[in-house]
């Protein structure tokens, strides 16, 4: 357990030292949301209706942005190779890195979401629902992204391939994530479905990503 905590702590510490990554991500998230009104036009009602979808897309895109560095730095300096000799299985290493990735890419976006809600003139109720849906849905996005990053880590210029690979997998999360807002009768089914997607993918992803890393290093 202390090994997982050490990996988690190191990731957060490295991100804290560099600092710029999380900030860039948040800026990107807010800016994607902020340019939407320019593209759609000054129709407040339409904007309010589209807002949850825009928030989801902005969150999704900014999480893609941070994907490549998940395993890349460790691959470049040989850390990934040394993780194979760790006292914990590679799956646990991947799980720790995935957890750190969520904390570093999804959490800042969640925290910055009120800003976007104001820009897009969302009301409190739909912002609350979107936030809840994001909270439940982003672990699945991170998990799929981890698989994408693990598959492409061996490619020197695989920067965009990982996101392209994970995009189709993420569509159900987007559908049900936005669906949380659009159901009329206040049903919690989409929310539960998003939560289920996250649970399954988080449980399954460390094994798939570790397998990809093992095969990739041969």
């Amino acid at each position, binding site marked *: 357990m202390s090994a997982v905590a050490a990996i988690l702590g190191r990731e957060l510490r490295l991100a804290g030292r560099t600092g710029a990554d999380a900030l860039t991500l948040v800026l990107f998230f807010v800016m994607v949301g902020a340019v939407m009104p320019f593209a759609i036009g000054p129709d407040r009602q339409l904007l309010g209706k589209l807002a949850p979808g825009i928030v989801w897309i902005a969150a999704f895109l900014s999480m893609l942005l941070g994907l490549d560095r998940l395993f890349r730095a460790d691959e470049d300096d040989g*850390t990934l*190779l040394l993780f194979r000799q760790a*006292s914990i299985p590679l799956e646990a290493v991947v799980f720790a890195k995935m957890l750190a990735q969520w904390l570093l890419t999804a959490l800042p976006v969640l925290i910055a979401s009120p800003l976007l809600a104001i820009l897009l003139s969302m009301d409190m109720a739909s912002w609350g629902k979107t936030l809840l849906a994001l909270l439940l849905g982003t672990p699945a996005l991170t998990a799929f992204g981890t698989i994408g990053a693990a598959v492409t880590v061996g490619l020197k210029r695989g920067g965009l391939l990982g996101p392209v690979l994970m995009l189709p997998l993420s569509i159900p999360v987007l559908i049900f994530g936005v669906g949380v807002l659009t159901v009329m009768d206040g049903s919690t089914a989409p929310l539960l479905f998003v939560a289920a997607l996250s649970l399954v993918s988080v449980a399954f992803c460390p094994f798939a990503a570790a397998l990809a890393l093992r095969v990739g290093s041969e």
Partner: protein
Amino acid sequence: MSPEQPPGTPLLTVRDLAISRGGRALFDGLDFTVLPGGLLLLRGPNGAGKSSLLLALAGVLRPAAGTLDWHAEEPPKLHFLGHQSGVKSRLSLLENLSFWRAVNGPSGITPPVALDQVGLGDLGGLDAGYLSAGQTKRLALARLLVTDRKLWLLDEPLAALDAAGDTLVARLIADRLASGGAVIAATHDDLPGATRTLTLGSAT
């Protein structure tokens, strides 16, 4: 598989090992045994498969044929020291070592003592990014000391090191051998105390 290993029981027995990379066979029919206290030197020209053999022993590469028998330890717990140091430049020397100690298991000496051993004792708080290539190598060597593991796989352990560094590596290896461990090293230089030398790329 008995937990009590009588002295002299090999740590590793390799039988009929073949490795190929990218469809090209590097070598085949390799047999050797690693005994406690043994230093096996791997030699051979560039591209003979020294690093590949070490990676196969480390469980990273799957051999094309043959078996690795680890006797008591399965899966094996060993240290691998390759060309890449696994050092994070934005973390201090002590943070780097403490990290590997936590990940690999705190069974060795403490990070400050390990830094002293490799001659970096005064630099514990420095960011590892400021180290020279030789100092980074010393830091990578210190990683082997903070977790106690019987078998060391060293790929060019003397690369980038100065004369004092060569002596240091020789001393660390001698210590490892004296405490019942074993070392397999791929090198073009001379390491004192070799119990066996395996030359790759000459037979085939």
